[in-house]
């Protein structure tokens, strides 16, 4: 899959050497390929990132084991060496053309930074603000992402920001509601993701936002303003992506997954209301809204985005089960549930295959195959 981008880049280099295109054209063509290949990940990158995750876990667990036979200054020195070697070595790997290995080395270096904070806290028996430690770790990772223009480090910073948000929310004895400064952090990371060209970071940020809204609602439970605002914003996002695709692409940078992401946001917002009203008569309204949203998204954008289609099918099936458990669960026995589930799944399978056939008959659309 990703070999497409690599192949085109090789071709561009060859054309430039052959004198078919000039340097400026070659540069802008390469940039365009990079920009539009954001969603594709090669097998090598996946393996390199998994290796980086394993190394990182090894470093963190090594610190947690608090191994006495090894002087602590030596442990600190070793982590410092990993930080320095990881960043500089990663840069050297990147320059020699091994992109994935370079990014993986940077991830290990960023993990070593976090492990060093944990180790120093351990050496000096510091307790208390773990959330702040994670925040500092995330800030250091974001700084590295900005300086090195690294997409994976940006995604890492987004995950650390999400962890910080969760820790701040649950640090008190009661659910305190997520920290509002996270919104500013998220906006800054969203802006950073354009500089580092990280599509993944933007999608992770939006998913964290849904979590933020859910935490905000369940900490307070007094008004549906936040989840409904999320659903409305997601609907606007969907409309924006449909009516002004070029502007939406430039301003939001969500790629071909924009409709699926918008549907996820809509269902998250409506789903919070559903969960809150589960035992009340009002439950039927958000449920109708959810089904309407799924069907509308499917009819409007289903043709162009396979990611959206499959997400919508899954959401539809999930809602059927959810509805059954809530509405009928108390009335029928288990056998009845299995019978009903079997019948609805067959009906669903029939409908999906018909829908898919119609789309296939209509011919491959732009982006339909690249989900």
């Amino acid at each position, binding site marked *: 899959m990703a070999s497409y981008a690599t192949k085109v880049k090789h071709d561009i280099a060859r054309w430039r050497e052959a004198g078919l295109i000039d340097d400026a054209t070659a540069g802008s063509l390469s940039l365009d390929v990079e920009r539009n290949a954001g969603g594709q990940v090669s097998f090598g990158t996946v393996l390199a990132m998994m290796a980086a995750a394993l190394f990182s876990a090894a470093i963190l667990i090594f610190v947690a084991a608090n191994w006495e036979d090894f002087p602590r200054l030596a442990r600190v020195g070793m982590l410092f060496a990993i930080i320095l070697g990881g960043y*500089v070595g990663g840069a050297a790997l990147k320059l020699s053309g091994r992109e994935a290995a370079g990014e993986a080395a940077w991830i290990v270096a960023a993990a070593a930074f976090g492990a060093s904070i944990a180790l120093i806290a351990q050496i000096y028996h510091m307790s208390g603000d773990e959330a702040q430690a994670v925040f500092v770790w995330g800030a250091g990772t974001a700084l590295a992402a900005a300086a090195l223009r690294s997409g994976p480090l940006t995604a890492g910073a987004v995950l650390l920001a999400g962890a910080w948000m969760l820790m701040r929310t649950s640090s008190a004895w009661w659910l305190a509601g997520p920290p509002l400064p996270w919104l500013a952090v998220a906006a800054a990371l969203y802006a950073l993701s354009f500089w580092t060209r990280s599509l993944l970071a933007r999608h992770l940020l939006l998913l964290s936002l849904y979590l933020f809204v859910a935490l905000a609602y369940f900490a307070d439970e007094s008004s549906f303003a936040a989840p409904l605002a999320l659903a409305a914003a997601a609907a606007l996002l969907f409309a924006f992506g449909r009516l002004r695709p070029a502007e939406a692409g430039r301003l939001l940078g969500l790629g071909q997954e924009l409709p699926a992401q918008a549907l996820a946001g809509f269902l998250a917002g409506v789903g919070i209301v559903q969960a809150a009203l589960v035992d009340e008569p009002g439950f039927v309204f958000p449920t109708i809204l959810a089904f309407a949203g799924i069907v509308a998204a499917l009819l409007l954008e289903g043709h162009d985005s396979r990611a959206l289609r499959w997400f919508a099918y899954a959401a539809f099936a999930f809602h059927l089960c959810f509805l059954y458990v809530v509405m009928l669960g108390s009335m029928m026995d288990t056998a009845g549930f299995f019978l009903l589930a079997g019948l609805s799944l067959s009906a669903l399978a029939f409908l999906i295959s018909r829908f898919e056939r119609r789309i296939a008959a209509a011919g491959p659309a732009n982006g339909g195959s690249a989900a």
Partner: protein
Amino acid sequence: MNGRRWLILAAAAVAVVQIGFLVSMIAGRAAVLRSGQEVVLQVEPVDPRDLLRGDYVTLAYNISRLPVGLFPDRQEEGAQGEGGRTVFVRLKAGEDGVFRPVAARFGQRPEPAAAEGEVDMRGATRSRWSASTQFVSVRYGIERFYVPEGEGREIESDLRERAFRMKVAVGRDGAAQIKSFHDGETMLYAEPLY
């Protein structure tokens, strides 16, 4: 070639900034250990079920729960906001050498300034006050004692049988740092500077 040098330089700069931050963390702690005022606190066992989590022992002290009366006219202030507000607790040594709280204040040091033999330690409240609050829980950042993997259980059971004491260094800003851990007259553990 400029782009190549730029990336290596940027990577080195990131490493230097991150390592520099970590070194400043260590230096700050070492400074408190070297020159901070010393106080001795009585270690109190925590709810035994929560005592040991992984590779550290959770500790409480004789100053972890402060009677509301130590906060002069600060009841309304205590009710504001949620937990996590800064407090300064004035400590004074008793006859047995253990320091005990004599006054406390939100946001700043108690008035008048600390006399000879008194130390102001900085902490953070754990919860909001209500009308029925009698004790305020305060954390000082010294509630964990890290031990090598597997050695926690022993200390945990000893803690419930005997009185342990902790010598703590207090920096100029009121930050507390564990210095040494005592079981009666025997010193179990002393913190080297680095």
